[in-house]
């Protein structure tokens, strides 16, 4: 009969109309600035540099080995190695970056720098509200801006950070055991 489909359609839209007031699950809109979804742990936006302890200069894990600079596909990392050395997390003297810049306007968030870093010094950040009114200097992030504490790393990627901490502790224990073993052999 003519009009049956129209009646069906009207019933459907009416159900949606009233349902959207009653049933929470119908309204899937997340009103972004006011409401936020919890980001999945694997979220990645741009890299950051991890430092241990409280001092972002002294605690920086990066040893300026430049592997990430070389491996970076779009070549957005710029590192200058320091002249002197500073002790790393295990107490060993290491170089550190005088300059560590990432041009985030070029970065493509591929995470390759994170994959290749042997020191777990560079990780992916989850912050995404990064707009700036200066498209050159504002998007060339220096070491100071990239440095984030290990506790921040724990807060955004808890499982991964715990794993990294365990690995580093193991390495540190090995490094501390080694000189003792060497001394024993010499004796």
């Amino acid at each position: 009969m003519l009009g049956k489909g129209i009646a069906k359609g009207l019933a459907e839209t009416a159900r949606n109309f009233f349902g959207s007031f009653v049933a929470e699950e119908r309204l899937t809109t997340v009103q972004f600035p006011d409401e936020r979804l919890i980001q999945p742990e694997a979220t990645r936006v741009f890299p950051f540099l991890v430092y241990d302890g409280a001092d972002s200069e002294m605690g920086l894990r990066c040893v300026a080995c430049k592997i990430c600079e070389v491996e970076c596909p779009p070549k957005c990392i710029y590192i200058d190695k320091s002249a002197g050395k500073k002790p790393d997390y295990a107490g060993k003297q290491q170089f550190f970056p005088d300059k560590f810049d990432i041009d985030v306007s070029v970065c493509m968030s591929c995470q390759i720098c994170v994959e290749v870093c042997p020191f777990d010094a560079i990780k992916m950040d989850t912050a995404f509200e990064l707009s700036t009114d200066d498209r050159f200097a504002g998007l060339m992030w220096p070491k100071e801006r990239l440095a984030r504490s290990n506790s921040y790393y724990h807060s955004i990627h808890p499982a991964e950070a715990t794993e990294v901490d365990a690995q580093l502790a193991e390495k540190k224990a090995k490094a501390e055991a080694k000189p003792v073993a060497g001394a024993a052999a010499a004796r």
Partner: protein
Amino acid sequence: MTQAVDQVFVTLKHSAVFHSPTELQPAVSILLSIVPVLVVFPSLFAVTTILERKGLARIQNRYGPNRVGPFGFLQPLADGLKSLTKEDIVPASADKLVHFLAPLLLVMTAFLEYSILPIGRNMIVADLDSGVVFFFAVSAAMELSIFMAGWSSRNKYSLLGAMRAVAQMISYEAPLILSSVCVIMAAGSLSTVQIVEKQAGYSGIWPHWYVLTPWGFGGFALFMIAATAESNRSPFDLPEGESEIIAGYFTEYSGFKFALFFLGEYLGMFAITGLGITLFLGGWAAPFSFLTWVPSWIWFFAKLLVLIGVFIWIRGTLPRLRMDQLMNFAWKFMLPMALVVILSAGIWRFMPAGVLRWLVCAAPILAGYLFIGRILSGGQGLEKRIYRFAE
């Protein structure tokens, strides 16, 4: 007391006219009749835009605009300011004068239509003896302004939209007028005030609205379908089908002229809905005899808002028609059905009241609906499509 509240605007106007200087009295009287219409209906337009956007959003399980003001209800204000600050672009090859006049003419004709609508007891701008004829004559000028807009823009999309608009509006004008003829036959008058007064009585608690008769119901349904087409509302929004011809006849309009087209379109919709209320739903009369204490103008606007809600509901439900479907529907269904309704109204007039009259009058309408509907939905070779490889 109820009488005083019902007539508050009328008495206010009379006292204002009475206290003004004698030589100014006609002017003051005219002004006080026109200005409320010029204020109330555009404000209703503003309210409708936000209600429509929110309603459609809810139909699609969204929130709709909710940023400007409480619950987003100041959105029309923001929209108005925005359209005022936009650049007014006139195409270089456009017919400048006609291009300028078209939106003005549209809004003016839309406002003229309100002059014969009784929006309350004794509340009418001009009680013309041939009010209904005046209404249809003026609404025909609306087509002219739409065609002016499409023609003067010198844009193929505008012209296509205008051609569609003219074809559609002329096609649907026939069933629109024929379906109101049955009311004119029953009321024996073309004056909107008298048509409303004819429906003002009650039997028991039930009103004597024409929509509560078989021919009235059929006529009302036809009238509202034709009104949807006349006001270019979805699903009959071919003249401005944005997925097909950009924005149709107002493609080349920007800024406030664009807003004027919107205003004119909505005003036209309110006016034709108001006429539908006047003809079939008893105008300002209360729906039940025990509700007559509520002021008449509240009833008019309540009915108007309900019908606007139905328009929004239909817009949220139905997809746009194709041009041939539109024309088939107008000439092969609406027009014969309107004639059947007129026949039924004639039988109703000459039969004694009773159950038999109901049956005799309802039978041709029902039979016509089923028969014509079968032909219309049958002969197009539309079958349920089988997706052999998708199963």
